[in-house]
């Protein structure tokens, strides 16, 4: 029998995005509201001065949240419904399954992304090159978070902890770190701590592209190198440690 990878990909999207959105719309509202509520708070507090940074922060949070949600969702399907066990004992392809789950997270976030992109077009109005740079940075952010999410999912056997970790990491990496605001707002001794988070580098790159921050060419290159290096490193760790079946 010829098996369709497109069909396998679509199955993950249907289960983890389309049917869930259709039958549990409240989850969708929650996904949209988190990045936008932070954006509004930053906008009000700064009296509109940081609206551009806040929109970029919302985009970063939305993409990071997508990756982290993968962790909770894979754990949920694996531990609560034993779906992964059913798929291991079938011709389903593990890589297509994970790819489909990752795609489903982006699709789930489309409403939030659509609102943020529309706001970005209004307030940041980047040129074509800048838009491409922003998109590349966000995709890299997504790849990093999805890799992190998948790594945690393979190690987790407790769904309550999975969701707690997902929320905790999203808060640490996107709300506390300088994602919604410039890094210069952090007092100097603590500024170095912010550089432990990959989201800081992405935010710097995006703020630089939009003109909210002036980085030297060397700093830009360093930021890209750090994020690309980290993502590649995580991919290697995940590919070595991810478990589809038990040994």
């Amino acid at each position, binding site marked *: 029998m*010829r098996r369709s990878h497109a069909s396998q990909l679509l199955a993950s999207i249907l*289960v983890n995005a389309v*049917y869930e959105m259709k039958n549990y719309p409240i989850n969708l509202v929650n996904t949209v509201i988190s990045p936008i509520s932070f954006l509004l708070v930053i906008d009000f507090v700064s009296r509109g001065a940081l609206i551009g940074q806040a929109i970029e922060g919302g985009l970063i949070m939305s993409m990071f949240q997508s990756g982290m949600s993968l962790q909770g969702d894979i754990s949920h399907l694996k531990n609560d*419904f*034993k779906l992964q066990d059913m798929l291991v004992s*079938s011709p389903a392809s593990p890589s297509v399954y994970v790819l489909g789950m990752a795609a489903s997270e982006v699709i789930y976030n489309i409403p939030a992304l659509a609102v943020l992109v529309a706001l970005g077009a209004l307030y940041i109005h980047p040129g074509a090159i800048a838009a491409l740079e922003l998109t590349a940075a966000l995709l890299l952010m997504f790849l990093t978070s999805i890799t992190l999410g998948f790594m945690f999912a393979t190690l987790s056997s407790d769904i309550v902890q999975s969701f707690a970790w997902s929320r905790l990491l999203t808060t640490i990496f996107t709300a506390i770190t300088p994602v919604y605001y410039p890094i210069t707002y952090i007092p100097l001794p603590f500024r170095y701590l912010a550089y432990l988070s990959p989201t800081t580098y992405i935010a710097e790159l995006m703020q630089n592209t939009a003109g909210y921050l002036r980085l030297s060419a060397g700093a830009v290159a360093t930021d890209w190198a750090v994020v690309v290096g980290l993502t590649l490193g995580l991919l290697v760790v995940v590919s070595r440690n991810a478990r589809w*079946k038990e040994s």
Partner: protein
Amino acid sequence: MEGQLVTERLSKRYGSSGMALQDVSLSAPSSGIFALIGRNGAGKTTLVRILATELAPTSGRAWINGIDVVADDKRLRERIAIVPQEARTVAWMTPRQSTLTYLMWRGFPYGEAKRRADESLGRLRLDRFADRLNRTLSGGTKRKALAAMVLASEADIVFLDEPTTGLDPVSRREFWEILRELAKDRFIFLTTHYLEEAEQLADTLGVLGRGRLVAVGSVPSIRGRTRYQYSVKIPAGARVPEVSHGEVTTGKGGEVQILTDEDEAFAISRKLSVGGSRFSVSPVSLDDIFFQLVGEPTQEDAEAAQAPEGAT
């Protein structure tokens, strides 16, 4: 080895917690229904998970229809499907959506998957529940929905790990019908706590005790190999005659059961008849055989028997 399930000294050790499976060697037809029975912790789920390519054995080998379970797991996965012990239908989906997406994950194109899903749900008389959310369905209907998923697939080898645990007697019997239907053109490997279920369904029976295979064969052949083939039951309060050989046990209500051979059962019956006592004689049940092979139930077994659905 086509048409055969074969295991050769299959063992599994989980970390430092000891051997879950020890040198399990068996050869049985890979057709009809193979029922695996055993106490809690006997290794049933471990054996199923190894055969279903979910778990790697510590040592030993296994083949189904000549396909090596470990070395050729990818090829075997083309032919197998499993409903794990604590599998549940995804809460936010309907039985139709669950079956459709399971088939799509197996690689069926959308149209073909939809046709097969509709057909399978119809065969299991789930049409009227097909578009309701899984979380609103009864326990029995949820189990049937899981069966519909594997029934709709092209798999000709199906593993079901305790598929009827927690179901009421009516739902359980309805589920047996589904299993008989599934077994018409598939090999079903099931584990169960219910000895009556194994007796009703199994073409081949395997008995596991503390990780070791204690017996394998058809129910009549296992019955023939046990030490005692007859059971004499005497109500509480009645005089129990002297038993020259056999096993005498007294139940909670005071009923006495004597497990013995045919000649002794006849001799005991004659003594009881002469004394005017009430009694019954029958071939040993699977329960009797099980306890002869594996031993008396432990406190853990008794607690598990009263545990809610899904507990093991």
